């Protein structure tokens, strides 16, 4: 039998090759794909997050671990879909209209994906209409907004207003982030949550959908 602790370690250390090999062998031995995800891979990403918060890991480690996670998930995704396993939630993520900064948004995306969320990445310069369409057509349960300029922050508010006027605000959670953004601003514009880094964004998203 495969020692599945190896899968945990492969994700934690960001060893994509090992993550793939162990996953394939475990599946060949008949291990349930969902067990691999929930018992080994997500706990490994949680530990990555913990180390990040403790300043033992930095952004490069996050990205490298997320890639290992993604490599294994790509093998497992069709099997999980066939069994009707749903992701924790679907997150429509993007940088708001008028703003082309994508690094922070990509980091949050990678970490959420590693945390078991399905990601609908809308890219940068995303209009409120596009966020709305992702909620209506792709059944996003979380809308994650990024802004890196003080002048584009108001577009976060506009996006929330659009969700409201379309009558879908109650069915989604909105989380926001970006260098000039604060918890205070999130409260001001009626967002459900704010996170100042990619790791705590995962904790926040989980909290929001658990409510």
């Amino acid at each position, binding site marked *: 039998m495969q020692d599945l602790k190896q899968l945990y370690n492969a994700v934690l250390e*960001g060893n994509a090759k090992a993550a793939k090999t162990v996953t394939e062998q475990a599946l060949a031995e008949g291990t349930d794909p969902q067990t691999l995800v929930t018992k080994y891979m997500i706990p490994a990403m949680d530990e990555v997050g913990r180390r990040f918060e403790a*300043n033992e890991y*930095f*952004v*490069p*480690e996050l*990205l*490298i671990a997320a*890639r290992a996670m993604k490599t294994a998930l790509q093998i497992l995704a069709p099997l999980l879909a066939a069994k009707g396993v749903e992701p924790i939630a679907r997150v429509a993520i993007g940088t708001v209209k*008028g703003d*082309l900064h*994508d*690094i922070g948004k*990509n*980091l949050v995306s990678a970490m959420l994906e590693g945390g078991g969320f399905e990601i609908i990445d809308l890219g*940068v*310069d995303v209009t409120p209409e596009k966020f709305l369409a992702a909620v209506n057509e792709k059944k996003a349960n979380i809308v994650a907004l990024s802004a890196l*300029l*003080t*002048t584009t*922050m108001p577009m976060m508010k506009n996006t929330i207003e659009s969700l409201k006027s379309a009558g879908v605000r109650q069915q989604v959670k909105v989380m926001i982030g970006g*260098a*000039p953004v604060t918890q205070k601003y999130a409260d001001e514009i009626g967002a459900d949550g704010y996170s100042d880094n990619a790791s705590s964004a995962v904790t926040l998203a989980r909290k929001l959908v658990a409510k």
Partner: protein
Amino acid sequence: MPLPGLTLIGESINDSVPSTKKLFDANDIEGILALARSQDEKGADYIDVNVGRRSPDFMADMVKRVQAVTAKPLSIDTPDPEIAAAALKAYEAGRAGGKIPVLNSISPLRMQMLDLFEIQPFMPILMASERKEGAESMPCRTAEETLLAAKQMLQAVRQLDYSIANSQLILDPGICPIGGDAEGITRRVLDGMKLIHGDPELQGVHISVGLSNFTVMLPPKTADGRPVKGALESAFLTLAMPRGLDMIIGSVVRKYERLADDHPALVCLREVLQLEGVDAIMRVREFYSA
């Protein structure tokens, strides 16, 4: 710390620096002015002033107060045209030995800020990291697109009713944190710089980056205790200065230097530039984990 051939805009007075934000939030103006004085003493050529989302009046007041304690010219740092206008109205070149301020920054997505020239002359930092194509805005993905964005900005400046020499313009190709650069942005920035520097139309323009952004997200020290950030930033300078970089927004206490060819940070950066995707990031990690 100053490096010959490199104009330093001192970065400390910025609302997105946590320790400075605390001073702003506590309305500790003396604390802010102390930052202006110490950066002046330690060799900053310009003092950056960024007040975040505070009011235009607050910005105007900060400009006056900072100018009262330093004779260095200021870099007015905001994407907001109203805050920028208030700062330009408050700025007195006479207090800075006649030197006009820098305006950080104008992007192809906010060209209306060029109208600010009617208030008083300044040196705009023009972003060449994004561009407009018709109604579409897009990030520059290649060195060629970076040059195109630079030329579009130059054209827009040339259409103004003022005569503005190339030497009054600063182009910023838009640096990206190396620890999160899985898309070859650092390569685009360095190659884009070289194209800008070599372009006949753009002769004499200054080229600047916000250098501290290059190493955010990285640990301060390597596993064996050597500095990470100063070394990688110096590696960037070592490659960028021959490509035309002559200005940075940076720290007065960081020891910037041109590195020897075999310095581990320079070896690392050269290899990173050859790698794609997460492999580039793994090479950065190898530098500080070793």
